[in-house]
C-alpha cells in the first residue's frame, strides 16, 4: 500500500481542525485529492495541502500508513473515527487524537493533548511521552466513554483518565493525576507509576491496578483481601496487592488493586479485612 507523509509547512498558532486525517480518507485518493481535503485553520476553511507538505511512497504493507513529522500540537481530532491502517506522529500531537476510533493504530513519538482516544471503540493508541486530561473519556454529559480498544501511554497522564469508561484497556507507564477511572463502569486501567488522589472515584465496575503509590483511597472503598497476583490486560502482575471494592456510594462493584509494597500508608486497611 502507500505511506503518506505530512510535514507542517509552518508553525501553527490557531487551532487546526484536522479530522480528515485518517487512513480511510486517504486511501483510494490521489495525491492531489489528498491535498485538497478540507481542514480548518481557525475559522478559515482551507486545504490540507496549504498547511502541509504531502508526499507519498509505496509501502510493502497491505494497509494505508500515514506519518506526520513535526509539531502538530495545535491539530485537533487527527484520526477521528478511523477504522484501519496506521498513523505515526513524530512530534507533539494535539487534543482529541483518535476520537471515536474504531480500529487501526496511532503511534505518537512525543506528547499528546487532552481527550486522547475519547469515545474510543477499538484499535490501539500508543504515546511515547505524556498525555493530557480526559484520556479515553466520554463527551460532556454523555455516559458513553471508551467502549473498546487499547491506549498505552509511556509517560504521565492527567486528570480524569477513563472518565465513564465502559470497556477497553488503558495503560500508563508513569504517573496519573487525580480522579482516574471516575464513573467507570467496566474496562481495565493499569497505572505503572503513582496515582494522585481519588483514583476510582464513583466507579460502578471495572478494574484499576496501580503498581506505584496511590495518594489516597477514597472513604467509599472497602478492603476485600490481599491478593498475590493480579491480571491486567495480557499480563499477570506479581503482588501482593491490596484489593479494594468500590465505589460504594454508587453501589459499585469495581476493584482497585494497589501494590502493597508501594503503599505502606494503606496498611491501616488490613485491620478491616474480614
Amino acid at each position, binding site marked *: 500500500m502507500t505511506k503518506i507523509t505530512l510535514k507542517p509547512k509552518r508553525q501553527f498558532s490557531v487551532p487546526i481542525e484536522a479530522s480528515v486525517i485518517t487512513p480511510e480518507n486517504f486511501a483510494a485518493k490521489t495525491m492531489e485529492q489528498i491535498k485538497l481535503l478540507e481542514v480548518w485553520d481557525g475559522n478559515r476553511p482551507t486545504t490540507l495541502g496549504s498547511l502541509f507538505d504531502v508526499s507519498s511512497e509505496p509501502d510493502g504493507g497491505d494497509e494505508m500508513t500515514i506519518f506526520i513529522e513535526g509539531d502538530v500540537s495545535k491539530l485537533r481530532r487527527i484520526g477521528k473515527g478511523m477504522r484501519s491502517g496506521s498513523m505515526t506522529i513524530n512530534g507533539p500531537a494535539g487534543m482529541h487524537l483518535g476520537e471515536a476510533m474504531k480500529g487501526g493504530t496511532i503511534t505518537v513519538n512525543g506528547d499528546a493533548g487532552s481527550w486522547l482516544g475519547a469515545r474510543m471503540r477499538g484499535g490501539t493508541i500508543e504515546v511515547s511521552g505524556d498525555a493530557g486530561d480526559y484520556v479515553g473519556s466520554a*463527551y*460532556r*454529559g*454523555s455516559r458513553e466513554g471508551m467502549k473498546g480498544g487499547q491506549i498505552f501511554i509511556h509517560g504521565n497522564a492527567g486528570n480524569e483518565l477513563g472518565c465513564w469508561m465502559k470497556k477497553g484497556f488503558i495503560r500508563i507507564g508513569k504517573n496519573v493525576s487525580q480522579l482516574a477511572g471516575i464513573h467507570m463502569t467496566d474496562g481495565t486501567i493499569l497505572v505503572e507509576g503513582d496515582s494522585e488522589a481519588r483514583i476510582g472515584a464513583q466507579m460502578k465496575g471495572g478494574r484499576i491496578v496501580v503498581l506505584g503509590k496511590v495518594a489516597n483511597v477514597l472513604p467509599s472503598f472497602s478492603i476485600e483481601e490481599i491478593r498475590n497476583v493480579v491480571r491486567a490486560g495480557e499480563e499477570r502482575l506479581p503482588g501482593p496487592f491490596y484489593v479494594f471494592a468500590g465505589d460504594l456510594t454508587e453501589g459499585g462493584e469495581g476493584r482497585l488493586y494497589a501494590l502493597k509494597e508501594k503503599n505502606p500508608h494503606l496498611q491501616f486497611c488490613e485491620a478491616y479485612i474480614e
Partner: protein
Amino acid sequence: MNDELIIRNGIVVDPANDIDREVMDIAIRGGKIVRKASPSAKIIDASGMLVMPGGVDIHSHIAGSKTNAARVMRPEDHVRDFERKTALTRSGVGHSIPSTFTTGYRYARMGYTTVIEPATPPMKTRHTHEELNDIPIIDKACFPLFGNNWHVMEYLEKGDVDGCAAYIAWMLRSTKGYAIKIVNPGGVEAWHWGGNIRGLDWEVPNFGITPREIIRGLCKVNKILKLPHTIHVHPNNLGKPGNYLNTIKTMDCVKDLAEEGRAAIHITHCQFTSFKGEDWSTLRSGAEEIANYVNKVKHVTIDMGQIIFTATTTMTADGPFEYILHQLQGRKWHNTDVEAETGAGIVPVVYKRKNFVNTTQWAIGLELALLVKDPWRIYMTTDHPNAGPFTAYPRVISWLMSKKARENTMKRLNQGAVKKSNLPSLDREYSFAEMATVTRAATARALGLKDKGHLGIGADADVSIYGVNPKEVDPSNDYRAVRKAMRRAAYTIKEGEIVVRDGEIVKVIEGKTFWADARVPDDMEMKLQSELSEKFQDYYTIQAENYVIAEDYLARSAPIIPGGTR
C-alpha cells in the same frame, strides 16, 4: 412593495370552511387572505400540491426556564445535530431540545406557523418571552401555570371565585400569558415538601384544598374571564399504571360547569394518563375507556402525546413525576421548584421498540386518535419533547393516515405488547381533511385564534403547501410519500411572506406573541390590588413591580381581548 400573492391551482384542504381537496386559488394581500388579488400579484404555481393552513401546534415545550435547564444539562443531546450559520439563518443545535433559532426554522420548514409553549412558571415568564422573542418566523403564546399557585389555592379554598378571577386576569396581563395551565394540581406544592397528590380529593398539605376544587375553581374563572382557550390540564398521577381512572374523573369533575358548544377542559398529552394495569409488567392501554368517555360527552378535548422511538428528553412542571422517573431509570435528574407557584423536572429518556412499556405507550397514543370520533376534539402532539421531538410529526401523520404504516412499525415492536393492544384491530385511517383538522383547524379553534387554522377571507395568510397530490396519492398505501412531503414544505407562507421554499428558509421574519388581555370590573381590580400589596412581599422574593412584564418586552405583542374571540 407588492405584498400580494396568489397561490394558484392548489388542492386546498380547509376543514374549517368545509373545503376538502378542491382545486382553487388563494389570494393574499397585506398578510391576510383576501377574495381577489390584483394582476401584479406574485404567483405561486401550486398545481398538484396540497395547500393547507399553516400548522398550529397547541402544546410544545420550546421556551423558558425548564427548556433551557434541559439544554444546559444535556450538551450530549445537541452535539451531533447542528445547523451551520448561513447568509440568512443563525446557527444552532437540534434533536430533542433545539436552540431557539433552530426551533423556529424547523417548525417553519414543516409548514408550521403557530406554536404554543404550554407551561411557563409565572415568576420566570420573562425568561420564556426572551426565548420566544428569539424563535424566528412562527407566532407563539405561552400558558402560565396556576394549579399549584398559593394565591389561587387560597382564593378557591375560601370559595372566592371572583377574587381568583381578578387575580388570574392580573397574572395573564402581567406575565403576557394566554391561558390557564394546570399541572398535577396540588401535587407540585406537595412535592415542595417531597410528597405528591394521588387523587382528586386528596388535600394539599397546608392549603386545605383538593385538586378537584382547584380544577373546578379555575374552570369557573375561565368562564368568568371568557378566556380564548379552555383550562389546559395535565392531571394528577401522570405516568402511573392505572391512572386512566383518575383521568376520567378529572374530565368528569367539570362536566356540570360546561357551557353549550364549548369545551370545559382540555386534557393534554393524554397518552401519559391513559394507563391501565397495576404496575409496569401489567401495563395496558386505557385508551378505549378514555375515548368512550370523550365520545359520550361534549365538554372535553384532548391531545395525543404520541410516543416516538428515539432518545429524547422529558420535561414538565410535574416535579414529583420526574423524580419517580429518575428513580426508575437512574438517568440524570434536574429539578427546580419555583416559590409559591410551581416547579419543573427534567429527565432524559429513551423509548425503545422492543420495550413492553414503550410499545404499549406508543399504541395508546394512536388508539386515542383512532377511537375518538370527532377530529375537532383530539389534536396531534408529541408533547415535544416528552414523547418525542416535534420533527417527528410527519411520522405521526403517516401512522394516523395509514394502517399499513402502523403495521410496518408494529412488526419491529415488542410483540407481547402488540398482542395485548387494540391497535392492530383498528382499521380507521385519517383522511387529509381529518389530518388537517387535528394539526391546524381544530387546534386554532380550540385556542380561540379565529384568524388561524383556516383559509377563509380575513384569515391570517399562514399557508403551507406540500409536494403531495391529495387527489392522486392514496395515503393509506403511499404513506411514505405523504411523510416525505410533510417533512419539507414546498412553500411555507407566513403573514403573506414566503419564508420557506422546498424545505429551505428563504426569508426570516419575526412572529407575534399572543397573550390574553383579561380584565375584570374596576371594583374587583381594586380589591385585588389591595390584597396583592399585602401578600406579595410575603410570598415572593421579588417586588410586585418587578414581577410584571411590560408589553414592549415582547418583540411583537399581539393581545387578544377575551370574550370576542369565537
